[in-house]
């Protein structure tokens, strides 16, 4: 059944300058506690040997999956995939803070707000969408890297960007017959033909438990920087697939026909 909207983030990787305006904007807009964050910019590190170097930044947040593992484990029904928009949301009045969804998310984009005892995550700034504003991260993105829109609408910014993309990549997750089918589309990866894709994205889904940014922090004993990079090891046996997706008309129309 076709939804009213098929919201998705489209991220033009070539345009991200890792300035972190999106993160600050999100923190303020969504009252994110100092020790947490809802969105990240993954720094893949300087690669290559001096002076032939490459440095790529990959913004990410909740992938608003078509098949979100988090909703399946939610015992209170607080976490749900919205029928109209496709956004994965948390009804914090219903959330009991058990944290199952935090563990179930293969992308580790949920956190338990300890003070309030509820789970929080990117809601694509649903409160802004309601009044016709873009998500805070998208609205302020200096390089125009973060885009958001309705893939059911062929002239939305997101659809247009996908139509014009040089290449399209998603971070799909498959395990035990489960396929997340994420709704963040990465476009325009530089030097795509030279990149070893799975290796490139390895740090995003580190199996080793190593943090992508060094776990040093300097401000408070509460160590919010420590928690601000919660890319812990994914579940044993799970594997991430980096899918190169080639744009098809069906994609825009919301029919999930992807080639891998």
């Amino acid at each position: 059944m076709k939804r009213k909207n098929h919201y998705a983030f489209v991220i033009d990787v070539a345009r991200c300058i890792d300035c972190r305006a999106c993160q600050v904007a999100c923190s303020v807009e969504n009252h994110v506690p100092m020790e947490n964050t809802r969105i990240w910019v993954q720094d893949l590190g300087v690669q290559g040997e001096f002076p032939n170097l490459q440095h790529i930044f990959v913004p990410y947040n909740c992938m608003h999956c078509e098949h979100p593992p988090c909703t399946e484990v939610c015992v209170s029904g607080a976490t749900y995939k919205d029928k109209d928009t496709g956004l994965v949301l948390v009804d914090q009045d219903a959330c009991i803070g058990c944290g199952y969804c935090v563990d179930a998310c293969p992308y580790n984009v949920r956190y338990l707000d300890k003070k309030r005892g509820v789970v929080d995550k990117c809601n694509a700034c649903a409160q802004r969408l309601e009044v016709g504003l873009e998500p805070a991260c998208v609205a302020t993105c200096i390089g125009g890297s973060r885009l958001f829109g309705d893939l059911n609408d062929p002239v939305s910014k997101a659809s247009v960007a996908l139509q014009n993309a040089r290449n399209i990549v998603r971070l799909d997750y498959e395990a035990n017959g489960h396929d997340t089918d994420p709704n963040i589309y990465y476009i325009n990866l530089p030097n795509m033909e030279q990149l070893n894709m799975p290796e490139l994205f390895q740090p995003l889904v580190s199996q080793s438990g190593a943090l992508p940014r060094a776990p040093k922090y300097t401000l408070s004993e509460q160590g919010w920087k420590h928690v601000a990079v919660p890319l812990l090891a994914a579940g044993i046996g799970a594997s991430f697939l980096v899918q190169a997706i080639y744009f098809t008309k069906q994609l825009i129309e919301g029919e999930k026909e992807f080639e891998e």
Partner: protein
Amino acid sequence: MANKTLSRRDFLKVGGAAGGAMLLGSFVAPPIAQAARRLGSLDANGDGYIPTMCEMCVWRCGVLAKVEGGRIVKLEGNPEHPHSRGRLCARGQSGLMNTYDPDRVLKPLVRVGQRGEGKFRTASWDEALDIVADNMLKIKQNYGPEAMVFSSTHNLSQVQFENLLNGFGSPNYGTQRSLCFNAMVTAFSLTYGVEEPARNYDEVEFILLVGRNLTEAISTSETAELVEAISRGAKLVYLDPRYTKTAAKASEWIPIRPGTDAAFLLAMIHVIVSEELADCEFVKKYVLGCDDIVEAMQPYTPQWAETITGVPASTIDRIAREFAAAKHKALAHPGWRTSNFINSFQTERAIATLNALSGNVLTPGGCLAAESPEAASIGLGKPPQPPYPRISALRLDGVPWKYPLVPLKLGVFQELRDAILSGQPYQAHGWLVARQNPVLSLPDRARTLQAISKLDFLVTVDIIMNDTSWYSDVVLPEASYLERYDPLHIVDRKIYLRQPVVEPQGEARSALWIYKQLGERLGLGDFFQYEDEEDYIRQQLAPLNLDFNELRIKGYLDPGVAQEEREIVFNTPSGKIEVYSETLGKAGFSPWPTWEDPVYPRPGEFYLLTGKVAQHTQFGTQNNQLLHKYQDEPRLWLHPEPAASLGLKDWDVVEVTSQVGSVKVPVKITQAIRPDCVYLTPGYGHASKGLRTAYQVGANASDLHVTYTDPISGGQALSQTFVTIKKA
């Protein structure tokens, strides 16, 4: 003791007085909310958006401040402002935390302990202002007005600050300029007669950035334009010894040897003029020196430059041809902070020359405009004031008696500090610092602290207890940029307003108010003929017959000034672009852009590079918790090769030692820097315990920086400090 971290939810608990006012807000709204309701910006509940202007850096983006019940809850880039275009950078987005910083100074403070001990008592404004005025007048009486030093950094209220010092009669004025852009401004003033030419990316095809790290030293609209141009396919060639995030976006990164940019650029000029690749008609008509330039540039072959820069001659030759081929769609960016080496002035002259040869200055659609971005023929009014008293004392910063070509308004701040210390040519006794942190920003912190110890009196105006306030005798709390008015700002022939969106917290007051109060106590009331901030702005608008309320609602006004079509005459002695400058020649310097060999480190020494991260502005934002949240820990960048020979691993703490000081800092071992360089982000290592977020985070680069001054532009050479490293 308050918790160091502050969640957004805690905002409501902070700042007792303001919080109290807010709770009553729906019954008795404070004046700003009342006014905003009348204007329609806020609804009956006190919620809505008020347009104003950012001050997290000097780019001055337009802001829409979302206010709920007397609190700022979000800042948006104003889509109507040409500098923000709906966007704000990380610093701009964090701006409300600047206002709600738990370490705000909210009452005037008077020192009770030793200087630097951090013991203060609170005082009323009357008492604090009386103390400041008494001390200033005592110094004036005993030693003359010149014994009082004034300093302040780039801000919209500076015009009234300047009234304070000029009215007082002191020639001694310190700004950040010599630590920042003296080389650029002096070179472009001499060559084009314009301080900072505007850049135009609309049709740019070839961009040459010489150390202009635009994706980390962000100017929102310009950074956005650069990314847009790159996405469109423009070529970006980036010269920097460090692989910055701008290098990551460049088509070509050239890790040039520090201090040799001018050699690279002179060789480009050599190729372009000797092979006649330039637009000859244009050059002949508008450029002074075109007849002899081939000869003047003759020694600077790409082969010569290769030996100096380490960049292959073939690369320089190719880039010169590509630059020339792009014609007026090429842009050699003038740069901004150009205080790197004492030859940085020559680098800037070479950049000015390359642009002249491309014809980009005068061609429609060209990438450089020989006018300042803020230039406009809008005749704003100003409160009346008498002429300034005549000043006969020498300037302590050596302008012009020691530095004849340094523009008076730029000055040489580091020299001023040294004169306070040496007492030559006379001893300064007092220092008024406004919105500036020289203890951290000037090179050689130990020397700055020594200079301060020679003063009878030090007073600072700031919103937080920065390092210089920490050593002050009196601290006057300024309202934050979201709590106050400033004089108007003109961009692209429109008038923009900074206005308060919430009440000032505590007893903080605007700079316009503070300077007026102080001025009146110093007997300078005639220089401050405005009732209050709104009256000041009304007087500015008066000659244009524009409506203040409309300005407050929209945040800007368009007085309908058309872009002037005028004959092209450059504001130089010859009226042409002076690649050949007689002014320079007469002052005893080379009239041509020329090569000045810099000093090189000895074996075992590294160049200490300085730079920017996108999350901070110089020395003033490190205490902002929202920025602190998303910054990386400052570490010393070091290439793996020297790291291996020094036996260093990533995160090892090292002792870095220069001629003047030493700091301990963890290393970041990275391919992203030349093996002969190390890099440390400035602005860290705050000494003030009044900055509970920033205190002792990271190391302070100014502990290491040696004071070197370019004799032409007066710029401090910040990358000319060499250091040794050993495991701590």
